[in-house]
């Protein structure tokens, strides 16, 4: 029972959810308390995770649950970004009248699901975690009942995601059938590409996972859901589930399917290339910022997958660095979106940014830094993210992937520049409200400064991530 310590974070967060549900049910008008307590629960969970950093690999529950550096790191960034989502969207949720107890609790639920996904070392545990987070996300997407768009987004996401979960489950059962086990390690022992069932299972699982991180060609849901959901939920969608899905991606590719590398490498390279190209090209015509961010995140997932396609430790590490920096950038961008409100109405079209620099120099400067970072222009952090990816890609002499990736960077630079052009070169519009919540300002400041000054000490993140060795 010593090992129970290692799963304390998950236990604590589950207890926290149940307790908060009780508070919500028995105490009237308790949404503010639940909101505060959820942040506290997340902070304590974070503390618990940091408190038991496992330097060695821990297997729990008959090897169906694994704690190692990868899972610890990913859990930490999942929870930190969850906290920032809650902090930065406080005022937004209040104004949009979605500041209810269920909101914070659902976010906690889906984070619990992600923690389980991240640590899962067994098909069944993985699937339970996945479903817990997906079900919470369906409800969150449709959370704003006052808007048909939100309900539509929720429904779309539900239908498509259920389909992909079905495919995933089908893949899992094929793998189980052909390898005779649900445990990742045992699968890797028994899997052979000579059995077509295994390859089919692999493909189905990859499709399901690609759906979760919205990689091309399974990306169709992303723009609509991003646009329709309340912005705070879009922020959550854009950053937190991606971390968990990417971890699972890494886990699947490098533990059970490591022997099928010849089979999946082509697939991942294709998905990565297609995502980079589509993300770059189709974002150009967008008029809505949330849609644009959806396409840009498709592109960014392409880069993260390029790191995975390489098949080396440095590739995995570069992917993890990429997703960490990507989180910070997107958090910053959404903070700016939360700040664009006038008389309790939020704006999210590109033209609403017109001439922002005149009346809001600080927000514009932050956006400038974040957008150049997203475009991957040095010396912002986004450049380093891409730099690590291409370091590992070129190490394996995958020049085609590298060159196409870098050229799509140039194409995508175009639409980031277009936003900057709208902010800085176009005539100003009416002034936006200035009464921002403290948490929102802090989140934006932290995100911007991290991105801007990353180049001063880039070794920090690398040293952290370089402990993650899967192969």
């Amino acid at each position, binding site marked *: 029972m010593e090992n129970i310590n290692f799963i304390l974070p998950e236990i604590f967060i589950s207890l926290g959810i149940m307790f908060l549900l009780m508070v919500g049910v028995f105490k009237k008008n308790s949404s503010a308390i639940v909101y505060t307590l959820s942040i506290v629960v997340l902070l304590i969970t974070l503390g618990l995770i940091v408190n038991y950093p496992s330097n060695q690999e821990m297997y729990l529950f008959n090897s169906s649950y694994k704690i190692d550096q990868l899972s610890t790191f990913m859990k930490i960034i999942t929870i930190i970004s969850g906290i920032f989502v809650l902090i930065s969207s406080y005022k937004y949720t209040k104004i949009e009248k979605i500041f209810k107890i269920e909101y914070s609790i659902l976010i906690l639920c889906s984070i619990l699901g992600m923690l389980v996904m991240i640590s899962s070392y067994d098909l069944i545990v993985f699937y339970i975690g996945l479903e817990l987070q997906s079900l919470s996300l369906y409800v969150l997407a449709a959370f704003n009942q006052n808007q048909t768009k939100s309900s539509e987004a929720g429904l779309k996401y539900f239908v498509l995601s259920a389909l992909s979960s079905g495919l995933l489950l089908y893949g899992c059962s094929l793998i189980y059938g052909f390898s005779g086990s649900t445990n990742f390690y045992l699968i890797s022992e028994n899997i052979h590409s000579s059995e077509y069932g295994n390859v089919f299972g692999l493909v189905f699982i990859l499709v399901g996972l690609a759906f979760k991180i919205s990689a091309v060609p399974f990306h169709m849901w992303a723009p609509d859901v991003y646009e329709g959901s309340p912005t705070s939920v879009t922020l959550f969608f854009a950053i937190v589930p991606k971390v968990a899905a990417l971890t699972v991606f890494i886990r699947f590719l490098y533990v059970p399917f490591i022997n099928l590398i010849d089979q999946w490498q082509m697939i991942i390279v294709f998905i990565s290339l297609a995502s980079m190209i589509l993300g770059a090209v189709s974002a150009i015509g967008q008029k809505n910022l949330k849609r644009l961010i959806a396409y840009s995140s498709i592109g960014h997932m392409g880069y993260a997958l390029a790191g995975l396609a390489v098949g080396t430790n440095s590739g995995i590490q570069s992917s993890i660095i990429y997703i960490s920096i990507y989180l910070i950038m997107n958090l910053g961008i959404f903070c700016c979106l939360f700040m664009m409100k006038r008389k309790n109405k939020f704006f999210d079209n590109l033209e609403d940014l017109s001439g922002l620099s005149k009346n809001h120099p600080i927000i514009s400067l932050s956006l400038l830094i974040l957008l150049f970072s997203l475009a991957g222009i*040095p010396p912002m952090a986004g450049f380093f993210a891409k730099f690590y990816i291409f370091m590992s890609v070129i190490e394996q002499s995958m020049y085609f992937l590298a060159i196409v990736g870098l050229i799509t960077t140039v194409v995508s630079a175009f639409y980031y520049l277009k936003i900057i052009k709208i902010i800085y070169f176009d005539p100003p519009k009416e002034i936006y409200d200035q009464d921002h919540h403290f948490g929102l300002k802090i989140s934006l400041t932290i995100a911007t400064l991290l991105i801007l000054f990353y180049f001063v000490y880039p070794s920090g993140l690398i040293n952290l991530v370089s402990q993650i060795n899967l192969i």
Partner: protein
Amino acid sequence: MTFPILSSLILLPLIGGLFILLSRSSDKSNYQSSKYVALFVSFANFFVSIYLWYTFDPSTSDFQFVENRLWLEGFINYKVGIDGISILFIVLTTLITPLCIISVNQSINTKLKEFLIAILVMESLMIGVFCSLDLVIFYLFFEGGLIPMFLIIGIWGGTRRVYSAFKFFLFTLLGSVLMLVAIISIYWITGTTDIVELNNLGVDVKYQNLLWLAFFSSFAVKTPMWPFHTWLPDAHVEAPTAGSVLLAAILLKMAGYGFIRFSIGLFPIASENFVPLIYTLSLIAIVYTSLVALMQDDMKKLIAYSSVAHMGFVTLGIFTMTQQGLEGSIVQMISHGLVSAALFVCVGVVYDRMHSRLIITYGGLVSAMPKYAILFMVFTLAAVGLPGTSGFVGEFLILMGVFQKSFLVAAIASLGVILGAAYMLWLYKRVIFGELINKDLLKMLDLNKSEIFILISLAIPVLFFGFYPEPLLNTIELSISNLIDSYNYNLSLAK
């Protein structure tokens, strides 16, 4: 540990920019004081760089003032240092920047603070480009320079500024990403991106051609060489005066510097292979863009095309691989930096008064603005390459170098000298001489004090180095001969 003088050169403008950023309020007095801060910082930087030049030891070709710090542990160190080639560009940068800041008096009306910050950031990035001794650090500075320049053109530019800013940014970015692939490949091929180590190790011959082409794609766009030059006239025409000055005087030199430092230094065999390509493109640039310049009716465009032609001379000289050719190229770059900066200021002067860049608007300015006419003449003649100006020294040395290699190439290049004289003198004639037809011109005031200061401080080095180029040549001589020696040595090894 000696005082990190190069890092402080890079950091000083950044600190000044931060200072301006953090100072609050936007009334007029604040504008003035931020301008004084920027001026103070940039002049301080200028004097530091002069001191650097003074203490620079020209009797060795090693890198001096080297700083080496851990940066990306295990991969890349932050390494800066200078040799005879880079010191001149650093001094040029620090000379041009304060002059740019003085010139904003007339032309920039909105967002002065942001403009000053952009120029200061630009300065520190450009100094970084010229003194970085690691390919990744170099790339960082090289690409980072796009951001402030994009903003300078886009925010404070003319009517078609958005188009020009985008074109500038995307053209250069597209060229540079291939260089990034090459840099990373070099890291995996040789295990380092440190330039000093790379010079000793050398890059495997079988990779050199491709790597050279990747670097070329970046530098050719930035130089700009024909046919990648089309962004330059647009960018120049739309940029505000200070932006054009920075662009012409320093940004274009980054590519020439890159050719010398990286293309020749790292890939000697590939450089030898691609000499015909460079000659062809340079000759086309010289002759074709000179002809195009003849036909321009916009003054800024004319000078922009003349820049392409002059940079054609520079690339020609670099790839002669002779002592005279390379020295001439560097002198020509310095001289072109001073002269084109001055010419853009000259255009800016009349543009601020008349709000027209068209040659046809003017004519007979000599009677309205005699001081202007004199200074404009000095720079016109320097652009033509009249003996006694620095332009002559550069062109003469380059042609000497080219003659040693190929008579035909030199003959065609000399044609460019004649064409250069044609378009510059014709421009001068149409703007300054002739009858004063447009009566509005009579109301124009002659140069004010700050304009005279800018132009005089550019004219002094132009004339001084025209008569006595020894300080320049003395500084670069050993570094160049060392470069050529190792180049020839590598070639002989390959054979």
